[in-house]
């Protein structure tokens, strides 16, 4: 108890709090100022090569949006203290669940999309239940899920179609009311961006303004004490895993219905990209802390850098170096914030 010494005066405490305040606000500010920095950099370097043109802006907004949809759900799960490494495989599985019934069995698109979401809810439920029942780290459980789901997707697809790609979805989806939700534009804004902003707003509301959000923080902070306080820990976990699977399915629907094809290799590494965006956005790997708004800016940094490097004409291989570096800086920063906050427990 190092704090015991200076405890007699009130001054020491007041200074302590104000320091926290600044750090707390900075943790979200980290992602925001990072995004501003990245935007400024590419505006200067590649502003006249298309980065600031309308189609240019749309291109990095779309990349950010697709990742942001995944990252928002991954952030909620991470705040709840868990990881989902099966997101990428879920994208491929959901894509096939949409494309195969439409192309091979002649299902109406809305029914195939519904099937994909039901499948996602079931897989999310299974992930959450296995983590709850076994008490194993979700990192391992969903790592198994990553391979099982990817393998099953390839296996079933080859079994049914004889190939690993299902093209030609587009000619079946014209005019389908549900498929419209995942294609084209709304007043010139790509639907993926609309989905992203709507889901980010919903996630923020959920996290900060609802009882469920408080439970998520509690479960991620310490699940045993949350349980003792009356939080339905198991239910919260299952719902969060359902959330990541559903986000992966929204991503898959956007891709399949927009490109008009599905591929068993879609979504590879997306689970890590989603985690990276959440961490850059200020989520702690240990759970219990983070924000959905920060994650929006994490995804934005990702999208701007990926497309920005393309506009500069530099080989896009360098994007991964940038990404890894950003991740490292973000984790060190988050760790610093956390250590300051828990210093009185040292």
């Amino acid at each position: 108890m190092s704090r015991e010494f200076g405890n007699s005066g009130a001054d020491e405490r007041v200074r302590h709090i104000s320091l926290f305040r600044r750090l707390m606000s900075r943790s979200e500010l980290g992602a925001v100022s990072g995004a501003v920095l990245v935007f400024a950099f590419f505006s200067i370097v590649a502003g006249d090569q298309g980065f600031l043109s309308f189609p240019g802006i749309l291109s990095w907004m779309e990349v950010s949006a697709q990742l942001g949809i995944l990252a928002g759900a991954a952030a909620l799960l991470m705040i709840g203290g868990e990881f989902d490494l099966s997101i990428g495989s879920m994208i491929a599985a959901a894509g096939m669940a949409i494309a195969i019934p439409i192309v091979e069995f002649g299902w109406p698109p809305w029914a195939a999309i519904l099937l994909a979401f039901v499948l996602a809810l079931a897989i999310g439920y299974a992930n959450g239940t296995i983590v709850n029942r076994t008490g194993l780290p979700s990192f391992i459980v969903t790592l198994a899920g990553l391979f099982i789901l990817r393998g099953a997707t390839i296996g079933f697809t080859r079994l049914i179609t004889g190939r690993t790609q299902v093209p030609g979805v587009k000619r079946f989806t014209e005019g389908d009311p549900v498929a419209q939700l995942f294609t084209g534009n709304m007043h010139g804004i790509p639907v993926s961006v609309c989905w992203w902003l709507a889901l980010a707003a919903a996630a923020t509301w959920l996290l900060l303004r609802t009882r469920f959000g408080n439970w998520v923080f509690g479960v991620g902070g310490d699940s045993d004490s949350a349980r003792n306080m009356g939080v339905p820990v198991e239910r919260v976990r299952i719902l969060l895993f359902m959330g990541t699977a559903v986000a992966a399915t929204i991503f898959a629907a956007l891709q399949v219905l927009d490109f008009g094809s599905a591929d068993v290799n879609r979504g590879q590494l997306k689970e890590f990209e989603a985690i990276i965006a959440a961490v850059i956005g200020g989520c702690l790997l240990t759970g219990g802390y983070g924000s959905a708004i920060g994650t929006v800016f994490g995804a934005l940094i990702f999208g701007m850098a990926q497309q920005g490097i393309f506009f500069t004409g530099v080989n896009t291989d360098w994007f991964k170096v940038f990404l890894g570096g950003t991740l490292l800086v973000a984790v060190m920063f988050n760790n610093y914030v956390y250590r300051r906050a828990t210093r009185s427990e040292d």
Partner: protein
Amino acid sequence: MDVLVEARRLGRRFGKVIALREVSLTISSAEVVGLLGDNGAGKSTLIKILSGVLRPSEGMLLWEGREARFESPRDALDRGIATVHQHLAVQPLLSVARNFILGREPERGWGPFRRLDMRRARAITEAEMARMGIDLRDPAQPLGTMSGGERQCLAIARALYFGARLLILDEPTSALGVKQAALVLRFIRQAREEGVGVVLVTHNVHHAHAVADRYIILERGRLRGTFQRAEVGTGELLDLMAGASTLEAELAGRARSDST
């Protein structure tokens, strides 16, 4: 003073090990009972049975005169038995108010617009802590800014606010310095004034002596006895707690065996 909980010949085995044998006791409202004993005396087994974490192998529990079987901590909590653990593993980055309301969040609005009532949460937290004599500087501050003693007090205030009638405090002062421990002990007295029954598990006889009305002493899984506060001083308490093996005797014994 009404009897809240009564244990009749409680026993608990873990395989071959008998952790608790024929322990009978009562705890009433508006009293502080110090539960004392050396390591392995059965203190934590006993409080785990009282708080619904473990089921007894023998004997029975009565809650307000009726036989009670607690299937889970939730069961015990619903009757009004709240346990505050030694390691308060609450989220240090979450605000004090959010920690206070966790699991019992006040809400307002309806349907899809039902939301946390954070203003009320802050007001409740501030009022409850003030009632117990702690002036919160800001309920929106992260919990990590509070001292260890203040955190214990927050957990106790929280349990009381959500209707605890029997408080089980597991080593609430063991990790605290003198000032912080005094803060928690004052809080315990305040809880008693409000009619709550308190079981204080501790190693520290001075802390027990400061607040307890009565002592229950366990030794090697058995009840060594219950003593009124007036009957024993801290010195006798120490002897009772350690049984035959006082610290001096243990040290002397070790010295003898070393020399042979």
